[in-house]
C-alpha cells in the first residue's frame, strides 16, 4: 500500500485477496492502523513540480512562548505541508515546507514575514532523491 493502492472498484477486496483475508477484515485492519496512526491516509501523492509549483523550505526563529501561536499561523496555509520544531545553534527553530505557484508562495512568505521574526527562505534547486519505503517495516 506504500507503493501503490489498487485503483479498482473494490480495492480492499484486492488487498484482502493478496493477504488471504476478507475485504471486511482488510478494511477493519486498515481502519485500525489509521486510528492508531500507523497509516495517515490513503490518497494521491502529488508531484507539485509537474504543476510548476515552487518548493520551499523555510525556517523562522520563534521565541519559545510563541511557538503555538506562530505554528498555528503557519499551519493555517494549506500550501504548508510539513512543519517541525528543529532547534539548532542558528536560532531558527521552526522549519516548514511550502509548495505553491510562485506568486502564491510569495504572498504566503510575505504574510509569515510580517510576524516580524527572523526568516530564511531556501528554495529548492534540485531534487536528488525522494523516497518513501521503509525497509524495516
Amino acid at each position: 500500500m506504500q507503493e501503490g493502492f489498487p485503483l479498482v472498484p473494490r480495492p480492499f477486496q484486492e488487498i484482502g485477496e493478496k493477504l488471504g483475508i476478507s475485504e471486511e477484515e482488510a478494511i477493519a485492519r486498515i481502519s485500525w492502523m489509521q486510528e492508531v496512526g500507523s497509516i495517515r491516509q490513503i490518497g494521491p501523492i502529488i508531484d507539485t513540480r509537474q504543476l510548476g509549483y515552487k518548493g520551499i523550505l523555510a525556517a523562522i526563529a520563534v521565541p519559545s512562548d510563541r511557538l503555538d501561536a506562530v505554528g498555528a499561523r503557519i499551519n493555517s496555509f494549506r500550501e504548508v505541508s510539513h512543519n517541525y520544531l528543529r532547534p539548532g545553534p542558528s536560532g531558527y527553530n521552526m522549519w516548514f515546507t511550502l509548495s505553491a505557484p510562485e506568486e502564491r508562495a510569495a504572498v504566503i512568505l510575505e504574510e509569515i514575514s510580517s510576524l516580524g521574526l527572523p526568516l530564511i527562505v531556501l528554495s529548492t534547486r534540485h531534487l536528488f532523491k525522494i523516497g518513501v519505503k521503509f525497509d524495516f517495516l
Partner: protein
Amino acid sequence: MDDLDRRLLKACENGIPLQPRPYKLVGEELGISEDEVIARLRALIDSGVLRRFSASIGHLALGIVANAMIAWRAPEDGLDRLGRALARFPSVTHCYSRETANGWPYNLYTMVHSRSKEDCLQMAEEMARRVGIDDYQVLFSEREFKKTNARI
C-alpha cells in the same frame, strides 16, 4: 489536468473513505462515476502529476522516533556530485539542493529516519566521512506541528 481533476484531487487529499467502494463515494461527491474516478486517477499517474496513489505512513506510530534533517555545506562546484553521493545512502529518504540565505550557508539537505538520535548522528558522521564534507548541522525534529501530503 483539468478543473475536474483538481476537484478530484482535492476530494481525495485527506484520504479516501475506508469503505468497500471508496471511488464510488468520491465520485458521488463530484457527480461522476466510479469508473471515471479510477480512470482519471490512473491518467494522473501516467502523466506524472501523481507520483503514486498510496498509503502514507505515520512514522511516529511505527517507532521511527528520530527524524533528522542534515544540512550540508557543499562547495558550489561539487554540489551535483555530492548531492548524488548523499542520495545513494540507503538511509537517506530525501535529498535536495537548495538556495542559501544570509547567515545560512548550507546548500544540501538530506532526511534520515531512525529509531534513535544516536543512530541518526552516526549516519551523519558516516556520510560526512565518506563524501568528505565537514561542515554540516543535524537538526532533529522535536515536535511535529504539521505533516500532510502536498496539496494543489
